[in-house]
């Protein structure tokens, strides 16, 4: 767990929590450096109430989050990335590079791994931790070759009956000259369309940012899950505000209007389940979060792997066919 001393990474509404954490750390540090000055009972007496206070504060603050707060949590500088989950929830990750055509897009990584007793293929957005990594991964914004690589590896997994887990965390696919020249839209479209036909179970999890088509490009699945403080949206709140409000600063209003939070998406029938995060968010306990994620994935894969392929594909078709209600003009609601 990252040190609480550095307050700059914390969001404004998290600051009171971080300050209490800081006090707790100081007392505990003092107890180890100068044990004579502070007896263990005294440490407990000091730290216990502080921890209670902190936990109470977390519950209060996190029960009042606005949609925009959740977007900021999804983009939190300390939020665990797919690479953290690959390390802590999976074992033996063996990366497979390249689209065998143009390049190896660092914004999407693919590899074979084990998830508990199961063999899986992991396809995940990569945002990068250090500045160098972030630049190499283009901040998690993939180019067409990223989607082509993902599809190639998914077809490989399909060939050998290996289920697929995708971890989604991107602002969106990259809008650039090279991306357009090399067919960004077509690469995403092809990936979406072919994922619908994969003859192995596919489980996708939005772990941070679910940025529009760039997210969906690796997100057509039998089960779509989302972490409690992740978001999934057709457009970024800033982009939506710029277009509909003509003012990117109205991003808070746009975030609310778009209904992009995990509970909203569950209610709308966009996601199949919400995975609870540790109190205060995944970044306060990445290892604990990884364990929860592993359990959730295993339970989905167990259920899906029991289905015959025909049934699996039939259900996937029915699932997407049913997303979104409309009405006939006679005004009878229908799905």
């Amino acid at each position: 767990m990252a040190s609480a001393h550095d307050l700059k990474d914390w969001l404004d509404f998290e600051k009171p929590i971080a300050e209490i954490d800081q006090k707790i750390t100081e007392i505990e540090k003092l107890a180890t450096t100068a044990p004579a000055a502070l007896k263990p009972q005294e440490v407990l007496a000091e730290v216990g109430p502080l921890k209670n206070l902190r936990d109470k504060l977390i519950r209060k603050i996190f029960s009042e989050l606005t949609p925009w707060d959740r977007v900021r949590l999804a983009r939190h500088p300390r939020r665990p990335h797919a690479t953290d989950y690959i390390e802590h929830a999976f074992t033996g990750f063996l990366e497979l590079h390249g689209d065998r055509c143009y390049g190896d897009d660092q914004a999407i990584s693919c590899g074979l791994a084990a998830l508990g007793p199961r063999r899986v293929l992991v396809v995940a957005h990569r945002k990068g931790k250090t500045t160098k990594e972030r630049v190499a991964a283009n901040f998690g914004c993939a180019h067409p070759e990223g989607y082509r690589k993902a599809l190639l590896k998914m077809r490989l997994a399909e060939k050998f009956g290996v289920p697929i887990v995708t971890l989604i965390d991107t602002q969106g696919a990259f809008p650039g000259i090279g991306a357009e020249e090399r067919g960004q839209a077509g690469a995403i479209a092809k990936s979406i369309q072919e994922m619908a036909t994969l003859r192995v179970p596919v489980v996708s999890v939005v772990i941070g940012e679910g940025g529009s088509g760039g997210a969906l490009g690796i997100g057509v699945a039998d089960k779509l899950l989302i972490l409690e403080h992740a978001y999934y949206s057709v457009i970024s709140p800033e982009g939506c505000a710029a277009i509909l409000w003509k003012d990117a600063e109205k991003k808070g209003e746009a975030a609310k209007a778009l209904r992009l939070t995990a509970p909203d998406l569950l209610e709308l029938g966009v996601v199949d389940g919400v995975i609870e995060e540790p109190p205060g968010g995944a970044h306060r306990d990445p290892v604990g979060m990884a364990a929860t994620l592993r359990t959730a994935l295993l339970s989905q894969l167990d259920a899906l792997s029991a289905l015959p392929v025909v049934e699996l594909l039939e259900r996937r078709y029915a699932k997407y066919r049913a997303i979104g209600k409309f009405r006939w003009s006679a005004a009878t609601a229908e799905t």
Partner: protein
Amino acid sequence: MGWMRFRKKEMPEGLWTKCDVCEEMLFQKELLEARKVCKKCGHHFRMSVAERIDSLLDPESFREVAADLEAIDALGFVSKGVAYPKKLTDEQKKTGRRDAIVIGTGRIRGREIAFGAMEFEFLGGSMGVVVGHKVLLAAELALERNLPLLLVCASGGARMHEGALSLMQMAKACTALARLAQAGGLCVTLLADPTTGGVTASFATTADVVLAEPRALIGFAGPRVIEQTIKQKLPKDFQRAEFLQQKGQLDRIVPRAELVDTLDRIFTGLLGPVVTGAGPHLTGVPGANGHESGRPATATLAPSDARPPIAS
């Protein structure tokens, strides 16, 4: 998404229309007869669905299906004090359509096809649940009746007012098209100006044959978003159909005057000639639009009943 950028210049009321590109004054009746192509510079004006049907399908052959599908406001979306249902009502009044796509069946040179065309004037041709579902229905119709599918695309992308539900329509449409493709069904798309965002990144570009109209703007992101992201000016003609064809992203750019003929040649080239009994408008008979069939003899091609059977 960024459809507001594409709102077209209001045409002057009455008999004359000014060309958006060369500013030539065009006689309205002549312009319509020329399928809304400027006689001076060849600029292809945007077309409504009604104009598409008139210029593409055999006369009186179009039968609309699922015309009554209407969007609901699942999100309770309000922007700048305007509620989405009000927006929908306004767009319906403006276009006479219930949403941004019309689907059905029709004939091209006597060949029955499943057909869909997007109404760009309806909220920028944006794709919400109704558009996604109707593309699915068109694909299912094509599959059930063993018809080739033609989709005319014109859209700014996914519809923000329906949030992630709009995004999921990309998957919905592609899921249905995947099933059609796996059963051996033919899908052809025509990308008109503009086709961007979630429509380009889903059903517009997964077709067996992807056609585009001259000079149509086609892309994933809109040009302004790209400029803002990379902070440099875009190359000339970037994201125009000609640029995309040069980059290998399109099968063919087709001027409107050649469209019916080209479609007929594609259908015949892949499926064989129309067999007798397919309807009163047999192949080779000049369409009422006055086009002569310019396709070569197809006697050596497999007849359409030799297509692989479609799984039910």
